[in-house]
């Protein structure tokens, strides 16, 4: 029985070791040329893209909140009152409209 236990233990150690190595390699890859290529692209375009969306499908806010910081999909007259914006769900990021420049309001 101990022989089998040893095999299982070695298997677990092997799994943990290759997982650690894989994570370390991935981290290294992200620091290298991959990051440099992104830098070149972003420097040239002035900074493009922020959210988990490849193209500004419905509007820009989730693609890049710098280009359009206003969530205008909710203001469109859609019967039923919901947004058709496909970028509003199912992503790992979501940029919502942030109130800006509120200090401009002065009480009479």
């Amino acid at each position, binding site marked *: 029985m101990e022989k089998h236990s040893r095999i299982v233990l070695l298997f677990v150690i092997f799994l943990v070791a290759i997982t650690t190595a894989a994570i370390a390699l991935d981290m290294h890859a992200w620091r290298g040329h991959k990051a440099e290529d992104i830098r070149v692209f972003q420097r040239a375009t002035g900074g493009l893209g922020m959210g988990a969306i490849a193209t500004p499908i419905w509007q820009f806010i989730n693609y890049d909140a710098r280009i359009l910081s206003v969530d205008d999909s909710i203001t469109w007259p859609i019967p039923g009152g919901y947004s058709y914006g496909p970028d509003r769900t*199912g992503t790992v990021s979501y940029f919502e409209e942030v109130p800006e420049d509120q200090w401009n309001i002065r009480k009479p």
Partner: protein
Amino acid sequence: MEHSKALKHRNLLFAALADLLRRRVRSMVVTLCLTAILFPLVTALAISEGLRFQAEIAVRTGADFFVSTDQYGGSGAISTAFLEELSALQGVSRARARVIGRTYFANRLVAVVGIDKESLFALKPLVQGTLPNARGEVLVGPSIAEEFAVEPGIRFTLALNNRKVFKSVGTLSPTCLWGSDVLIMHLEDANEFFRIKGDASQLLLYTSPKDAPVVKRSLSDLRKLKGTAWSQVQIKDRAHIGERLGSGYGYKKGIFIVLFVVGTALAISAFLVTSGFGLKELDKEIGVLRAVGWRTWEVLEKVVMENLLICLTSVSLSVLLSMLWMKGLNGILIAQFYVAEVGLIPDVDIPSRYLPSHALCCLLFALGVTLIGSLFSAWQKAYVPPSELMR
């Protein structure tokens, strides 16, 4: 003394391994169940981290200030006439204009980016082909080039303005998610295409971190000039955008909530199995151990070791499986749950970045799920007289 202690822990470890082997089916079911729970969580964390990493570069290497106008409460185009005055502001090292728009390339929605000649030249290391030199020449994003077989030299028009003829002169190499579906061209070409003259989507200002507050103050002062065109100007600075990036990728939003709810719901089944729900055998086993002189803490340590081995295996399997799926298969079938509208077979590079903290987070989650049930159940049984447990 130390040696005998170490020997005791070693023996407990082997006792735990022997138990896992003896209850082979149960061990495998729990491991697979946990792997299934952790896989989407690891994948979501990796995609989120990959995108966040790319977005952070976009914010860090992008401009310091983005100037546009306020049009009906949204961001509107700004006249390039402002550029001269802005570039003369104290602390501004560079000012340039850009056009960002969207249009359809055949049936595909693409971002149109219009930049100045100097910026186009900066893209040289990423271009396969040549850089746009003459008017009408464009660089095509890798996804469009691949899907529509757009090679350098091909001329095309787009439905939005079919009088404007473009010529592809180069393809961009894959860099980040937002560099996949783009058409990059001269600023003037973009303006001509969108039929807007003398305007830009944004004016970009560059400054040093030291001068940033000075520039911000100058811009605020300009905005206060009521009755002039400056009062309609909208300004976004890097710090503000950085804050939004943090909240945008926060765990409170999006799929994470869903994943955790689904994960916890599925974890209940693993919890029931590990806690020995319905297993009379476990009662007998603890009874025998107690009868041969095992102490309560030894029983509990063995249970912890069993669960730790299961959790380590599950976490490793889920990370490796997720990596294989994301790096090898580019997130086929699952990427669309995390990156909107990329389809079942994504033709854009889906970024995924795995960090030790992801594995640790999953390990803690798995240990929490399994230990809550099994440890409590074993602790309860360890206090029941062995004769009763073995009955």
